[in-house]
């Protein structure tokens, strides 16, 4: 049982380490996602009507989780994201990997991604 967890975490840690550089000057209060125990920043730019996300966190596992979300939702149109039911998050087993506090963090990350999409409809 533990080895399974270890594998999942090792994967998230790897994802976190490989997430692209995030500029220091974009670690601002308005880009900070509230509701996570560690600090997570989410930024984006628009390219051809699609949203390209970038993110960072001071905790590596959290960074892995936001990296996974970005992999799924970056490069999509705002309406695609807004209409998504985010069931993919359940399917890849992310939610059950997280204690309630952490799940709150995940919920906050998803809420922030949706908020960005809604603002750019």
């Amino acid at each position: 049982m533990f080895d399974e967890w270890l594998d999942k975490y090792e994967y998230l840690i790897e994802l976190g380490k490989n997430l692209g550089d995030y500029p220091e000057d974009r670690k601002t209060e308005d880009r900070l996602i509230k509701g996570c125990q560690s600090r997570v920043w989410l930024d984006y730019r628009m390219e051809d009507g699609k949203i390209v996300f970038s993110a960072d966190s001071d905790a590596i596992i959290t960074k892995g989780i936001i990296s996974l979300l970005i992999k799924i939702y970056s490069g999509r149109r705002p309406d695609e994201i807004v209409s998504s039911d985010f069931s993919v998050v359940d399917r890849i087993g992310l939610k059950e990997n997280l204690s309630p506090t952490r799940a709150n963090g995940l919920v906050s990350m998803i809420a922030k991604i949706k908020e960005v999409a809604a603002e750019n409809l």
Partner: protein
Amino acid sequence: MDAEEIRRNFPALGRQVYGRQLVYFDNAATAQRPRSVIDEWTRITEQCNANIHRAVHLMSEEATAAYEAAREAVRKFINAGSREEIVFTSGTTASINLVAFSFGEAFVSEGDEVIVTECEHHSDIVPWQMMCQRKGAVLKVLKVDDSGHLMINSLDGLITDRTKIMAVTHISNVLGLVNPVKEIVKKCHGKGVPVLVDGAQGIVHLKVDVQELDCDFYAFSGHKIYAAPGTGVLYGKKEWLDRMPPYMGGGEMVGTVRFSGTTYAPLPLKFEAGTQNFAGAATLKPALEFAASIMDDAEIVRSFDAVRDYLLDTLLADSRIRLYGVPENAGEKIPLFSFSMDGVHHEDLALILDKMGIAVRSGQMCAEPLMDRFGVTGMLRVSLAPYNTMQESEYFVKCLDKAAGMLS
């Protein structure tokens, strides 16, 4: 007795998490409950569930007897002068809020001053801030040095003729160092300033004698010392409690009630408005009896000290680790260790340790000013109780090393 014998009294310690034997190292947040506490709660609930202090029927008398027996157990445990000085609350936070409000109403005016310390948790900061805001008073802070010790020499300079009260924790829930509370009380009393001691952690690890400390108030929670959650105690010297107005009104805290005016019940009921958590409070008796039996057992104390010394030495010797609250001698440190590890986030460590079966705390520990003081966003904390063993500690050290390896 040894730790293994103690453990058999705690059902929760037998459980598994993620297929591994639980190692519970988050005791400063809440302790596990022994069988005697669970049984007392069940007994009250099953056999004498009736409201206390009001009815003449047998069940009510039995419930009242259990509640008042717990008050006597608390009085004895902290060596208070009388039962009138023991007020039941819902916990440390409620106890401090009660004093901040009622003492403030009676004794604090605009321009007065209150002193707290830099190592208080939020429950011993925010109630005082609220009181200062209400009264137009000023909050002053006694700082800690880099090792986590209170800078006691600057206390005299902080006390003025406007200082109305000082609040200090017996042991910080982050630093784990025993503060020189007796000395602080002496200094404050020398200038006519009463002292509230936050005993949330202190009551668990020290033999507290409120008459010897001579503090004016001592606040603690039941759940950290094996009793039911939602229970707590405020010890207050009668001379203060008598002169403070009630915190809340209603229930059995009255003498007579007329629309023209109300008189209040004598101590301690004056401060126990509404239906009390009587089943919970009753568990303080078996909980404190259990705590006393551990504190009085030289063999347990010796082996528990050895566990503390092992963790202290191991963490101090590890160059990757920065320990907050470094004692001058092991005796002033309780088995509570908050630390950071180079290049590794506390939350990541806590998550992986959890999967290894070890419950620890990560984050700000309800003490943001102390996080700012040490320039961190959070820490990792392990806090032990006498049912924790050397074997568990060695396993923790091994797992910490493995988790750090995964993360760096």
